[in-house]
């Protein structure tokens, strides 16, 4: 049963005949050449593959393209250029939230997903919001500061 799957990725409508059980992460990285989402573990533990689907933060290594059909998928590449991304980028820079950068795209998506739901988060809200994104370099606090800073600076954006 050959089926065409239609996906909306970073505001573009994509159709594919790839097998519906293909992981969204693989489709993004191999078929779309979107390499922001990373393979850190393949088990949904590290969050390096995190994308946003219909406003929810989701680990793309655990989702098939079949179950993502008809949904709105955003990666860091799709967020780039928005005002929200600009604020996050500046705050991540000032707060020293980026070291090796491997967890960063996932952290940006987690931050955006959180702020989209809670525009004025507490520190605990932020810790919770990125609790599924592992970072080995920073010890997290500078990332949390960056997100709290973005919430303040981005007043009205989320």
């Amino acid at each position, binding site marked *: 049963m050959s089926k065409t799957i239609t996906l909306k990725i970073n505001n573009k409508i994509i159709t594919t005949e790839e097998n519906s059980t293909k992981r969204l992460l693989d489709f993004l990285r191999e078929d779309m050449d979107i390499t922001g989402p990373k393979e850190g573990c393949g088990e949904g533990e590290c969050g*390096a593959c995190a994308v946003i689907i219909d406003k929810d933060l989701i680990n793309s290594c655990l989702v098939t393209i079949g179950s993502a059909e008809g949904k709105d998928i955003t990666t860091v590449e799709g967020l780039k250029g928005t005002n929200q991304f600009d604020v996050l980028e500046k705050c991540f820079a000032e707060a020293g939230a980026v070291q090796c950068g491997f967890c960063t795209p996932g952290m940006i998506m987690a931050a955006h997903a959180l702020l989209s739901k809670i525009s004025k988060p507490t520190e605990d809200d932020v810790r919770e919001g990125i609790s599924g994104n592992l970072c*080995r370099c920073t*010890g997290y606090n500078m990332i949390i500061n960056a997100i709290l800073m973005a919430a303040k600076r981005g007043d009205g954006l989320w």
Partner: protein
Amino acid sequence: MDSIRKSVIKADHEIKVDGSVKYIADIKFNNSLRAKTLRSEKAKAIIKNIVIPDLKDGYYVVQGKDVPGVNKVKVIENDMPIFADKEVNYIGEPILLVVGPELEEVIKILNEIKVEYKEDIPVFNMRESKDIFAKYQYQKGNIKDAFKNASRVIEEEFYTGYQEQAYLETQGVVGIYEDGKTSVYGTLQCPYYVKDAVVQALGCKEDKVRIMQTTTGGAFGGKEDYPSLIASQVAVATYKTKKPVRLIFERVEDMSFTTKRHPALLKYKTALDENNNIIGIDVDVILNGGAYSTLSSVVLQRSLLCAIGVYNIANIKVKGRVIKTNTVPSGAFRGFGAPQSIFAVEMHMAHLAKEIGCKPLELKNKYLVKTGDSTSSSGKFSHDVKLEEMIEKAEKMSNFSDKYEKYSKENGIIRKGIGMSIFLHGCGFTGSGERDFIKAKVKLLKYENGIIEILVSNTDMGQGLQTTFKKIVARVLEKNYEDIIYKNPDTDRVPDSGPTVASRSIMVVGKLLERAAIKLKENWIRGEEQTIEENYKHPDLIPWNIQTFNGDAYPSYSWGINVVEVEVNTITAITEVTGIYTVYDIGIPIDETIMEGQIQGGVIQGLGYASCENMECEDGKIKQHSITDYIIPTSKDVVNMKNILVDNPCDLGPFGAKGAGELTLVGTAPAYAIAIENALGVKVNKIPITPEWIMEAITNE
């Protein structure tokens, strides 16, 4: 003009935040073949036969006999094969690569290959092994007399476990053979280590090998020597197949089979006189090197050199050995032998204090080294030691002594505890390695248009060299750091400025860059292309003798104080960290925010080492080999920290900066352990301190 330390936006910030920077797995190499490793199923065996099925067109097996040069990975000794062909020494040891265009077929072939082994008896227990990779010993004063005259001898043993680097980006290399030249791209710390290894593997001339570091997603020592193994493998594979070969590890494979921190057994024996003065300390260290020697001899050296920590003890004997077991080889991990020893010596001093009946800080204060004191290896602390000032600051920040007193009297379900550790880290390569082996060289290239490029072999793995190196050069030449070029090193273009290890990059290489920049400034010719070279100059030190293990092992030291506060739930034995305070002397910071990042990241890794990062090897296999089972802290497991720096510029480093990369991990574990002792009245001799252990300790009270 602002001080150099004023924070700037990191030079590589944008490309990391917008996801555009490419790590090795992100890069598409045309016509590349996928590679998978066939690994030994036995911990110790002779390989009798390898039966390979018929291979489809375009699929290859790459093994020992395909190695054109020497089938050994060039590290310090040449004991590790690139592809095990005669015998295997640990479960997981690489025997061959299967290489081909479709990964599915590659895996299918891999599963069909049959290896026939003649099994031997493996040694797993580090206490039982008689196979020694390296051993050293040194003394100071008269240890025999000290123990003869002792009123009391206090003896105890410590154990520290494995620690997995758990960099977010797994190991990965791509080898490309083209026009008689072999190139290897990869996530790595030491391009020239890899180059030397590949040259040896291919048995070719140096100009036939090119190594290029790709942006590295964390390393922490785990990519110091391991890439030499896999780079050699893909180099041989691409040489054989004449096609690009891509070897990227899955997480479970990485956790199961790559190098980890050496587990350690440390015995401390202290002689006290009738007035409870410490008159002698005898230390005996065993490190578990795993199946091959890798960097173990140097890890042992560092471990022995800081075995007495920050204390000036007149009579000491320190000896140690790294032994072989049929397990995954141990390797480099931030701290490199120091975390093990500092844990042991700080806990031992805390336990001695209890034995004597005084407070830990009281005892420690009595023996703190001072400026000008001799080091344990009879070198000299010739630069200022500011421990007293640092302890004072730590006390003020954390209220340590008052809390320690208060918490030791508590009852109740939730018990609070606080602990302090005092520690040091020798900056740079141990011993005379910098002068005799590395012989670092840096280059500054000034283009006709005045743009400057930094040519060094050091790599940014997140610690910020892309920014700090640029700041150093820019500051001297009064340029904007953003206009300086510094690309990921390519051995075709950069000189060997040494590996990115041992907390040497800023102090040693940064200093060379500072000097080169000064030279360029003084000899600047407008409109002309200029290349300035600077070579390492060994400072005036008490000469280091590896045989007698005597002299200045390091040119300078960085210092740290950690205070950790905890709450232990006595019903569940779960510990929560409620406060972390640190004071560090790293000379001066080249960038305050980058330094803060090193502190926070290092401290949390140290915290994991002490608490949740439990890794056991059972019957030669790593039990916790997935990111689900090997527990590193999440954002919910950490607390905000209060960190301060004490300035202590050292002329050996650029603008006074000293080494900082490893220091920040070294001290958390004993501070945490002492806090648990304070909270529960138990005695901790082992890390990680798991809830399971705590429960046993409090139910046995």
